């Protein structure tokens, strides 16, 4: 078991290293000379000699692997460089924006469960009948609708026509509703299907039959016995969904002017603020891999079937 976690952890570190190499190389490929960029930021016309000095200071004359090494050392010390636009520490900027994204994720996950638990349950209960077809169509629709269009429609209906919710910005819980729905709705289909399949499988198990024969009510069977077992695979899906959440958050945040990491990335791309883009890619890559690792561990801890057998490589 411990070996399993350790090997997954090693894998995590290797992939993170790979990510750092890729972002580093991409930065090197970026158009424009970093020295000229710095000069432009400090709006001084410096001579050729000064440029050479800066190049020397930045270590741009050393071989590429040396540059990578010192860059990696900085990254590990949470020194991601300074923004080219306002000269602030990239790490500080990202940490300022992180809470908003976390709230958005929590809101989206709440919406996700509000949609998927009832629909998944209905589909499983009335398998092959109208509610099942309905939830299936709903799932297909959810998987097909572009999230930014859904967001625009929601804004159009709830902000412009009904005037119930604010169109953009942040601050109150009212601001969080539309972005959370936009983000949660698009991810919900996978959960509906997974929950349906999980419930159908668990409800056909012998222990459910045994519980029924002991006279336990249907509701108690559903919530005490079937639901926890059916929710199990969702733990691993949450890890995988992290990618979808991140992708969705970039779109949703820029759509609603939500001051999170995703909108920071888009702003940085518009302004060609390379250190911020790089910081965003590294940070979200790290979060993605870390959540996957955690959900892997969570699954093993929660699921007695996996916990009791010797865990090999999944």
């Amino acid at each position, binding site marked *: 078991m411990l070996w399993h976690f350790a090997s997954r952890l090693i894998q995590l570190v290797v992939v993170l290293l790979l990510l750092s190499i890729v972002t580093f190389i991409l930065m090197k490929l970026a158009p424009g000379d970093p020295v000229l960029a710095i000069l432009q930021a400090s709006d001084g016309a410096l001579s050729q000699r000064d440029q050479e000095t800066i190049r020397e200071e930045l270590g741009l004359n050393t071989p590429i692997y040396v540059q990578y090494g010192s860059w990696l050392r900085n990254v590990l010390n949470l020194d991601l460089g300074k923004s080219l636009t306002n000269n602030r520490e990239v790490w500080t900027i990202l940490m300022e924006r992180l809470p908003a994204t976390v709230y958005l994720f929590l809101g989206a996950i709440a919406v996700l469960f509000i949609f998927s638990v009832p629909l998944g349950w209905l589909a499983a209960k009335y398998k092959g009948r109208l509610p099942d077809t309905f939830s299936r169509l709903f799932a297909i629709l959810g998987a097909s609708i572009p999230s930014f269009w859904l967001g*625009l429609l929601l804004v159009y209906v709830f902000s412009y026509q009904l005037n119930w919710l604010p169109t953009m910005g942040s601050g109150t819980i009212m601001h969080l509703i539309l972005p959370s729905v936009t983000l949660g709705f698009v991810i919900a289909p996978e959960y509906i*299907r997974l929950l349906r399949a999980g419930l159908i499988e668990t409800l056909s198990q012998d222990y459910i039959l045994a519980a029924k024969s002991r006279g336990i009510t249907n509701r108690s069977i559903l919530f005490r016995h079937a639901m926890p077992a059916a929710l199990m695979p969702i733990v691993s899906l949450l890890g995988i969904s992290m990618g979808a959440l991140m*992708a969705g958050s970039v779109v949703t945040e820029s759509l609603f002017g939500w001051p999170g990491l995703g909108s920071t990335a888009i702003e940085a791309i*518009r302004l060609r603020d390379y250190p911020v883009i790089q910081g965003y890619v590294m940070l979200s890559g790290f979060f993605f891999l870390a959540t996957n690792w955690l959900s892997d561990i969570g699954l093993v801890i929660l699921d007695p079937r996996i916990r009791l057998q010797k865990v090999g490589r999944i």
Partner: protein
Amino acid sequence: MRRNKKEPAWINRNHLFNYPMLIVGSAIAIFFLILTLMGSWLAPNDSLLIQMQDRLLPPSYTYPLGTDHLGRCILSRLLEGAHTTLGLSLAVIAVVTVIGVPIGLLSGYIGGRVDAVLMRLADGSGALPEFLIAVAVAGILGPGLINVMLAVACVKWIGYARVVRGIVTSERQKEYIMASVVAGSSIGNVIGRHLLRQIASPLGILIAGDIGRTILLISALSYLGLGAQPPAPEWGAMLSDGRPYFQAASQLMIYPGLCILMVVLACNLISDGMRELLDVRGQSTINFRNGRKGET
């Protein structure tokens, strides 16, 4: 074909009309394909022609779907945009299939060290979500659909290689393959005559779904300004261009979004319908970690 006990006898499971999702999906897909192919011929106006005196017009005879904030014909722009979105998405998936399938076949069939190396390579590059990679590439190398799609293709082939490899490794050990090998078939023969047929249906399902997902990705990136650049008429870019004018002219919002929705819906319906028709084990590709027994 498995027959459900509760089903009345007159339902013939082999009849195509019992798969409404497949029918509806294909109908929509064919409709849009025809529109795309005949797009430049059907377009009533020049998609790039700016006419400020005609801005934000409601639908009329000259402009069947109205005009945008620069007086450009929305229908013509939609038809033109179909080339970009659908064409690029199909191209990416075609490239990815051509790369992924042979690698998966070799990896699964030869096994051993080749397999180990290829799959470790796949683990590494497939570990990150493609959207993140697209953002990184667009951010650093500059916005543009070609850059971004190259990056996506670099990641996406892995999924194809994995699916193919999975099927090949399990099929390879079955008797009919061994019999074929013993009877003296070459590798090419075994792959071409037996394995490709096993791969075809899961691959078809994957491809149909992926075309839809790639369309969503392209339009989302273009909406964010990372993909197609103005004035190119791309559906997602049209939505972001027209956003300030939605209240005044809702046609700017409705039609491009509806186009994306319909095309992706068609892909998903075809993918799901094929899964039903071919009765592939495991109803959904997303359930890959959740081994289930029997029918659901």
